């Protein structure tokens, strides 16, 4: 079953065409703007979503600064506050968390892991990216047109009545939705049709499995969001009356439509993060994954269950009591495959040869933070407790533990992990570790106070609050500043590495999946010759230590 021969000889390329790779094979604006190469598209996604993340983070810092004192510090009125936190939510969700991992790391790594030359539909891939750009431009346009203050959820009837640029941002979300759909569609086809010979389904790396499950959700859930925001736009333009109670409509119908997408969307966001963590715990512990098949199937299980739980966002919206029982009960089911993953990761690390480098530190931070984020989700899923906690900072803290603490940290972990692969350069490990420490401390300092004040009744979305909550808000704001400094150090560390050009190794971490068995950075068509897979996945007995000590050319 296993052999000791690497699938691809990384040194073969060295004797051939020299150091031509995807970054330097062609030059000029159009060689990037019109590229069909998945790696270049992935890089453009990385830059785009990275900028969106920094903008969204800046909005968050402004919100936290405003909440420093009970009557507000920064904004002139409540509308401005509402606009800024809406911008934070909308940018982070639609422009960063949903597209970031599939768009950047997914695009970059998926075809490499499959031993393919590209994704199955390269032109559609470029279209996805330009739809993302169009969505971002529309979102910027909506800000210029006066902003939007509905929250990222666009709840009716407020989104129907407010005098702000809801139609424009609705259009942006519609376009971004199709960007996401086309990425998902592309990945499904790629996984089905472009696997290298010998790469059976159960030899696929778990990042591929996770992206596959994500893609199913993107294709099956996003169209419903598309029609929902379209209907909100139509409602504003010609008053259909579907969501507007004055015209016979039902705002709760909007919530059903919205969460039918947006709950699965939570797993569109988190499943790729799970995939990254699965790769990293294995590579940096140099141990085959514990429970490989269980992790693979739990991704699919989460994808399926996620379609059946949307009502848990609406326990206080007026649903039938029986529906609420069912939704609450089904919500607990999500915890089972999720816990299977968490325990499998911990079991993978156990007695491994653990390398405490920056990607692994982020991974360990993820394991801690995600345990808290997941368990507080179970608390919120229970019907009676949720009635008390609904629309409080407890909810805010919970989903930030998942979205920021888990997903963004997993993204950072993956970025550190594949950075040497993408650029052939190494970042400064010490600085990266300091950034990781700042982010971990800052993140917890921001959101633990929010758990506490939420459980004591501090409602979310308010621009002002009663003075009793001030100590928690001040602690949270200080935490956010530390978090902001941490992110700034991380970004600086990455950018500096591109100028310092400290060479990475051909196989920096000792990975044995196909992405590490092609030269670094990968040539335009990924592999010097089409690979054939003969090994089981994560079989470290095949690791070629020479590639770990050979710098890139």
């Amino acid at each position, binding site marked *: 079953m296993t052999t000791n021969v690497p699938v691809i000889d990384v040194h073969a390329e060295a004797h051939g065409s020299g150091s031509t790779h995807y970054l330097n094979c062609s030059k000029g604006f159009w060689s990037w703007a019109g590229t069909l190469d998945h790696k270049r598209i992935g890089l453009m996604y990385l830059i785009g979503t990275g900028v969106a993340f920094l903008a969204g983070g800046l909005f968050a810092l402004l919100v936290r600064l405003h909440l420093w004192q009970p009557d507000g510090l920064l904004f002139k009125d409540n509308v401005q506050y509402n606009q800024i936190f809406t911008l934070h939510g909308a940018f982070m969700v639609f422009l960063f968390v949903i597209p970031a991992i599939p768009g950047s790391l997914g695009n970059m790594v998926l075809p490499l892991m499959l031993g393919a030359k590209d994704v199955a539909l390269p032109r559609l891939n470029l279209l996805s990216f330009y739809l993302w750009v169009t969505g971002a431009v529309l979102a910027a346009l909506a800000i210029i047109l006066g902003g939007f203050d509905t929250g990222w959820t666009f709840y009716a009837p407020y989104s129907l009545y407010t005098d702000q640029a809801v139609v424009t941002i609705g259009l942006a979300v519609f376009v971004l939705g199709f960007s996401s759909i086309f990425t998902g569609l592309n990945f499904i086809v790629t996984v089905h049709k472009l696997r290298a010979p010998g790469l059976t389904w159960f030899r696929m790396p778990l990042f591929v499995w996770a992206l596959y499950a994500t893609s199913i959700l993107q294709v099956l859930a996003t169209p419903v969001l598309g*029609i929902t925001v379209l209907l909100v736009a139509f409602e504003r333009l010609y008053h259909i*009356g579907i969501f507007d109670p004055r015209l*016979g409509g*039902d705002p709760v*119908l909007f919530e059903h439509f919205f969460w039918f997408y947006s709950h699965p969307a939570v797993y569109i966001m988190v499943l790729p993060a799970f995939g990254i963590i699965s790769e990293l715990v294995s590579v940096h512990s140099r141990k085959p994954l514990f429970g490989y098949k269980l992790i693979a199937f739990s991704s699919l299980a989460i994808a399926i269950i996620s379609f059946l739980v949307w009502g848990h966002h609406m326990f206080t919206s007026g649903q039938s009591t029986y529906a609420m029982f069912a939704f609450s009960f089904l919500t607990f089911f999500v915890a089972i495959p999720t816990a299977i993953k968490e325990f499998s990761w911990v079991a993978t690390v156990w007695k491994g040869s653990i390398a405490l480098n920056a990607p692994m530190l982020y991974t360990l931070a993820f394991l801690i933070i995600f345990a808290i984020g997941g368990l507080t989700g179970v608390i919120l899923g229970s019907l009676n407790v949720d009635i008390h906690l609904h629309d409080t900072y407890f909810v805010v803290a919970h989903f930030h533990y998942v979205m920021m603490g888990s997903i963004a940290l997993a993204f950072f972990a993956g970025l550190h992990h594949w950075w040497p692969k993408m650029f052939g350069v190494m970042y400064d490990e010490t600085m990266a570790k300091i950034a990781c420490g700042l982010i971990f401390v800052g993140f917890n300092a921001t959101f633990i106070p929010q758990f506490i004040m939420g459980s004591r009744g501090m409602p979310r979305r308010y621009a002002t609050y009663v003075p009793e909550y001030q100590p928690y808000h001040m602690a949270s704001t200080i935490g956010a500043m530390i978090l902001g400094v941490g992110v700034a150090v991380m970004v600086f560390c990455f950018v500096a590495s591109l100028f310092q050009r400290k060479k990475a190794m051909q196989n920096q971490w000792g990975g044995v999946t196909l992405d590490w068995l092609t030269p670094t950075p990968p040539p*335009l068509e990924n592999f010097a010759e089409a690979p054939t897979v003969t090994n089981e996945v994560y079989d470290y007995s095949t690791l070629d230590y020479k590639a770990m000590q050979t710098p890139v050319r």
Partner: protein
Amino acid sequence: MSHDGHHSVVIPAPGPEFVPHTVAHHFDTPVQEFQAAKLGFWLFLATEILLFGGLFAAYFYFHESYPETFRLGGRQLDWKLGALNTTVLLISSWTMAMGVRSAQTSQKQKTLMYCALTVLGAAIFMVVKFFEYKAKNEHGLIVFSELFHPYDGATGSIPWFKDYHGVMAGVPHGHLFFAIYLTMTAIHGLHVVIGAGLILWVMKGAAKGRFHAGYFLPVDLVGLYWHLVDLIWIFLFPLLYLVP
């Protein structure tokens, strides 16, 4: 983006009036390319069905909430015109299928003819739809010139719903049926127009001889799209025109 040193697979043309097809560089075989595109397109069709699914869900929800409104509203539609359009689309689906078949058997002229007939069907459908909308406009059930006028919360009247003959008097929210009718049929109509545009694009390629027994993928996919457009109408027709 081809790369030097990598050979590409070429499907030869079956005759002088056709051109060969070069398989995209990242596929190993023509079959792989065909299957990948087809799988992707079926997934895309699934997203279309889900998009319309939201509209159908809204239809059923409000049909349940205001059955009288939907009963009276449906009577205002001309089922004969609806049936005519259904027939036109069904026939056009047949001509499209024949167009795909002709491409598969390398019959260039027949491909062009059947595609042209399909576009003709699309045109007839849109003309009939135009006269249906015109009638609604005349009866004040959908006043298109005032469609985007602002809603006056004080009077509670919707600018585009005048109901000159009072046909919807006495039922709650009479505009709702027509709003849903307009939204569903307009989005469907947009798909008809896009479909016709795609068929014209296929005809352009067919005229150049791009499609033959060895390569007919775009014809096949556009055909699938056209059948979906037809299929959605097959559900819209009874729900809007007949169920009431």
